[in-house]
């Protein structure tokens, strides 16, 4: 089992500059967040799905399918509770609130998808470099990338620990919710402790390799903007500017929607 999310392929998306990919992420967010009506976010959805396909990143989407399903169901229900409209359908569902909940759900799923696209195609080190390139200090970039790095480590230790506890007779699948939550204690404590131990060694290794020794650190990796990067960035920028203008002009709203 490979715990890493980065996919070591050589696709069009992989070859893009890390800065471009981070900015696409930001632009997509803008284009997604401004509209209320689901029809209006279809274009950006299509572009995001295209990106996932080009990056061959569906494998990673498949890996988080359970989480995505849970999110979809809860999000569709929840936004109907937090919004209402004029055309009543059934229970607490109105036509307007249903449309709105669809948009919000798509927003969440697509944001995750954008994140998956970014992480699947960009090495941790490139991500750091990209963030520095966009003006963040090295330490901030490094901290973010370290947090990302920790995820696969924790996942693989959860895997080992659950095997160990299952061998001792722990059955996580049966019982009421309360009972099940109690059953996670034997899993979580070793996970915490081994993560703390790991990060301790990590910290020592980091300092021992001279982390922060010199202010002007060099980078072995080099980022390079090519024509395609400029083209995509220009397109992304136009796309989000147009989205904002359309939003200001009143397009993409749902009439009769009340948000709480």
């Amino acid at each position, binding site marked *: 089992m490979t715990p890493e999310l980065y996919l070591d392929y050589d696709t069009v998306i992989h070859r893009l500059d890390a800065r471009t990919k981070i900015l696409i992420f930001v632009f997509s967010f803008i284009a997604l967040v401004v509209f209320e009506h689901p029809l209006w976010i279809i274009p950006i959805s299509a572009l995001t799905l295209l990106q996932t396909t080009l990056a061959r990143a569906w494998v990673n989407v498949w890996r988080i399918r359970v989480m995505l399903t849970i999110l979809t169901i809860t999000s569709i229900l929840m936004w109907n509770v937090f919004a209402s409209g004029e055309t009543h359908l059934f229970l607490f569902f109105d036509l307007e609130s249903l449309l709105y909940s669809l948009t919000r759900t798509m927003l969440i799923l697509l944001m995750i998808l954008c994140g998956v696209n970014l992480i699947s195609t960009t090495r941790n080190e490139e991500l750091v470099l990209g963030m520095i390139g966009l003006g963040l200090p090295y330490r901030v970039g490094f901290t973010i990338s370290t947090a990302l790095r920790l995820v696969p480590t924790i996942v693989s230790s959860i895997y080992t620990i659950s095997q160990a506890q299952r061998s*001792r007779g722990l059955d996580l699948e049966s019982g009421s919710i309360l009972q099940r939550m109690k059953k996670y204690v034997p899993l979580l404590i070793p996970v915490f402790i081994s993560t703390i131990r790991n990060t301790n060694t990590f910290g020592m290794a980091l300092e021992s390799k001279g*982390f922060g020794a010199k202010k002007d650190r060099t980078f072995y990796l080099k980022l390079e903007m090519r024509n395609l990067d400029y083209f995509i960035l220009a397109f992304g920028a136009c796309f989000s500017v147009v989205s904002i203008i359309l939003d200001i002009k009143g397009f993409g709203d749902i009439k009769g929607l009340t948000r709480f």
Partner: protein
Amino acid sequence: MSDHAVNIKDLQFRYRGEKKLALDGITLDVPKGEFLVIMGASEAGKSTLAASLNGLIPHYMRGRIKGDVVVLGRNTMESTIPQLAENVGIVFQDFEAQLFSTNVELEIAFGPENFGVAREEIKQRIDENLKYVGLEEFRNRPPFTLSGGQKQKLAIASVLAMQPKLLVMDEPTTDLDPISKQGIFEITNKLRQSDDITLIVVEHETEEILNADRIVLIQDGKIIKFGPVREILQEVETLEELGVMPLGIPMFFKKVNPSSQLPLTPDEGVEAFKKASLQISEVKFKDMLKEDEAVSRQFSTPIIQCKDLEHTYPNGVRALRGINLEINKGEMIAIIGQNGSGKTTLVKHFNGLLMPTGGDLMVNGKPTSDQGIFKLGQRVGYVFQNPDHQIFSEFVFDEVAFSPRLRNIPEDEVKERVSEALEAVGLVGYEQEDPFSLTKSGRQRVAVASVLTIQPEVLILDEPTTGLDYKEQRSMMDMVKRLNERGSTTIFVTHHMWVVAEYAQKVIVVKDGKILLQGTTRDVFSNEKILEESFLRPPHFVQFANRLGKTFLTPNEMIRCLDMGGR
């Protein structure tokens, strides 16, 4: 400036919150270019000493420090860790946690980058160091896809790329198989040839350090002995007392033919054997083989049977490719093989953690797929390699009682079982202790006890001796042997060949998901050629015996079979 790489003067250190001194008056001078080995029992202060050389002590691990440590002219108290890192590189035991880049190249680049080395120069250093440790073909691979030995080599290369003048390694080979260990020591020997690097290595494996210059033995934070390697390794008894494994060959000669110069290596052993005109009695040797057979015949009821067992992981890796074996009730079996050979995958089938993706596996005459892990877990106990992956309770008692309580055994009986289990592992009186406060070997025992409370018929132990010192390894295996003699069929996976030689009755050698060799320990260890294919080597003493034409597993066995009349 002196021609010393390290000057330590009267160093004392106490970790914050501890009462005992971790280092207690260490004075040590290491000349430039030397290869020094630090040995001693667990908790003797070896790692603390290593960590004080690059400033991790006192800057990272806090505590009260007294005395002076001067490394290459720099006082460690007055310099920061990154400043010291320019001259001192350190490699840790845990090769997982010290690698953090997404590919091999970038891992090596990290150190030089921090010191502002120019890109072109970094590239050159990557090339050089990959070649030095023999990882050129892996330069674009993510580190997590490398084997344990390769990971540790990468860790060394990433430190060497900073061009340190002192390289400290803290138990670099503890988690590695014998040939990977050798690979690491080949690198250290190469480093030793160059005069401008000083090597300080904390190590448990006595056989590997014969090429070092000097050994310093420490106990309770104090230096007990300090001297040339050959001199120290002759002191069999002192080593044993300090929890360091003595070599089998000098041990044997000390008993049969004591002299001022004991042989250390198999070559020297053979020569000394001839010189002393020792003879092995054919009759006595045959008697011993007959005893072997008698022992094997005792066990004839199969409890685990594999037929063409295969396992393919969801990602397509074929970990097992047709395993055929039969394990009988009451046997004590060692499973050996290189890191990644499939041995852990194999044993995880025995308690139902993994199910076959091809072929058959029967435990107690029934396929494991019909029994499931919960049911199988009551018959087959599995002790994982790292006790910290399972300990979670506040008290030793609760930890050990976890399994029987889950299985709804009445509390009275749970109590009884816990006290039996704690007695078996030698932890009586520790019921109300916090398991996390115990030493590694103590936690390992808690893990074993917590499996014993289900009274398993089969006991599986994954590397039960890793990370323990020689004394602890012995007492752990003595305990396992007692459990085996009480009737548990015992299967253990290990990298420690001397443990196999002394404790296993049968050995299964796994290579690339197949069984390369299986049989009695004596038979398997007589096949040095085939073992080598699987990157394994018997201990020095067995190699020495093999060269004499007969496979003896321990010095005592050979002494028993010596022809006394011939002298």
